[in-house]
């Protein structure tokens, strides 16, 4: 089962016209999950758009950083769009959605407040699905070099000659 859509040929208007907006994400048919403003979009080939959208939202709810854009969370969970993850993801998402329904929403991603979604996650936090997603994010999210500058972390410094002449002791507020 391969769903192919060439997102590069899709205009922002087309994107929005085909929107099924859920929470802060947008789910299309045709294998696309995107930001409502078209800032990013990702394609799924193995798991469903809804499942990918749920993983992205879960990632953000587990490690919420308001200054970190969705695209980094997408990168962190993209690997679950693979044969090996189908069962874990579909069962995990279905269970989460069932809990959301019991709590009065349509699904996990349509549960509007982060606090309410977190309440749902707390019910599954000792389970294998949650632990796999959370554990994977520790490196999947925080080891993305592009994320580091958002936190001020400067990464590699040897090629710049270290900080001996670049502010290793430049603190000025003490």
């Amino acid at each position, binding site marked *: 089962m391969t769903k192919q859509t060439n997102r590069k040929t899709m205009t922002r208007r087309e994107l929005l016209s085909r929107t099924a907006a859920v929470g802060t994400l947008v789910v299309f048919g045709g294998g696309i999950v995107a930001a409502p403003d078209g800032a990013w979009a990702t394609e799924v080939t193995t798991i469903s758009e809804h499942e990918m959208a749920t993983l992205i939202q879960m990632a953000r709810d587990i490690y919420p950083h308001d200054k970190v854009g969705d695209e980094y969370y997408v990168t962190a969970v993209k690997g679950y769009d693979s044969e090996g993850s189908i069962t874990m993801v579909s069962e995990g998402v279905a269970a989460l959605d069932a809990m959301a329904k019991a709590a009065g929403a349509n699904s996990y991603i349509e549960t509007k407040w982060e606090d309410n979604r977190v309440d749902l996650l707390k019910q599954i936090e000792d389970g294998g699905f949650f632990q796999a997603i959370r554990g994977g994010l520790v490196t999947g999210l925080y080891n993305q070099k592009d994320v580091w500058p958002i936190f001020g*972390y400067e990464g590699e410094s040897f090629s710049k000659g270290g900080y001996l002449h670049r502010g290793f002791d430049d603190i000025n507020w003490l």
Partner: protein
Amino acid sequence: MAKFELNDGDVVVVIGTGAGGGVLSNELAQKGVKVVALEAGGRYLPEDYVNDEWDSFGQLAWTDARTTSGDWRVSKDFSGLPAWIVKAVGGSTTHWAGASLRFQDHELRAKTEYGDVEGANLLDWPITLADLEPYYTKAEDKLGVTRTGGRPGLPGNNNYKVFEKGAKALGYKEVHTGRMAVNSTDYDDRAICQQTGFCFQGCKWGAKWSSAYTDIPRGEATGNMEVREKSHVARILHDDTGKVTGVEYFDPDGNLQMQKARVVCVAGNSFESPRMLLNSASSMFPDGLANSSGMVGKNYMRHMTGSVYALFDQPVKMWRGTTMAGIIQDESRHDPSRGFVGGYEMETLSLGLPFMAAFLNPGAWGRGFTTALDGYENMAGMWIVGEDMPQESNRVTLNMDVKDQHGLPVANVHFSDHPNDIAMREHAYQQGQAVYEAVGATRVMPTPPYPSTHNLGTNRMSAKAQDGVVNKWGQTHDIENLFVSDGSQFTTGASENPTLTIVALAIRQADRIADEIAKGNL
């Protein structure tokens, strides 16, 4: 570099090339003793090291299988990774931060000084500070330790400045940038520290001492020492008089080889050293080699550790500069009025963002955790390291159900804190938090111990054969030509980082072995 024959029974075989094995091999080679050093890991030098926490971990860390048990949190959060140590030529001296402190006199007499501590298996060392002092001086000169031998201290980085200000505000007196095996001036053909950070990832400037690019090449240059890398020792062999005769090891192609030896010195760090002795069990020694006391693998110590990180309303950028050049020593004393025996040090520490995410509060999630990381740029940090109690039940055993890539049973590491460890950690958390609160911290975070970096005690030194595995020379009580040359010899842990003492003991042991060989006793 020398090349010795497998059946050359004249060589001393040293297993492991870290702080203990690397130094011992070179010291022996300098004295004209023939040495074959067998190292399970590959060879990496400053040009190979990477300024990237996870990539470096992948390059250098020991990730062969191990298992864990006991109620320490590491066993839950990092069940297959009880220790964060290295498998490479140079061992954990590639990772280490360089803090180099002498033990104190009273710490070598823990049993006498602390008295009976329930549940603790305390013992006095069979050596005194006076025995060690000349070797400490040699070790400090070898490592180029700052603030010793006339070498100046390192400059303080941002993380240190925050730490120092808080410490002084609390009235602490012994506060400085540490005694570090990191060059504050050009010394011994090594460069001056460039304050790059990434000391844990291997120093690309060679400013930090590591046996990988000092003792090992110097030993090789004598023509008396051969290092065989990617050579994993499986077992130590003996004859029917009970003397060891050589070792069996897997060569880089995975083939089993046998190297003969006149003396075998075990320096594989405190999990692998007892594991090798236990895996060498025979009909003559059914409980493993050198284990008549039953102490091989027991009394595992890892120091009472923890960290305190703090957030401020302004930037600190703690990752810039040396990772650990900062210390408060005032709490490193025996003063039972604090509610525990022994003492602890506070030392500056920083982790990069990737490791901070993994270690700040393993398993935690949600905004309580992420808002702390949001403040990463404004964070300062320290490590606390104190004396933990030896307990017989904290031990390394063979896990017969789990085999490594060579089919050998792996080490299981069982550890639970002693009440004294817990009381000391509570005190240290409180003092660490107070240090940062004194500089206006907006949030402080007592952070649990990481996978162990200091691993000690599993072949301990004792005056009497029934109390431990080795005598005051690191020679096993049971087998005269079998030695232990790493941190597993430690009788107790003291509050200081262990490596200077491992190096001092290795230099001392080399003198002894060379002497005994010259006298025809070995």
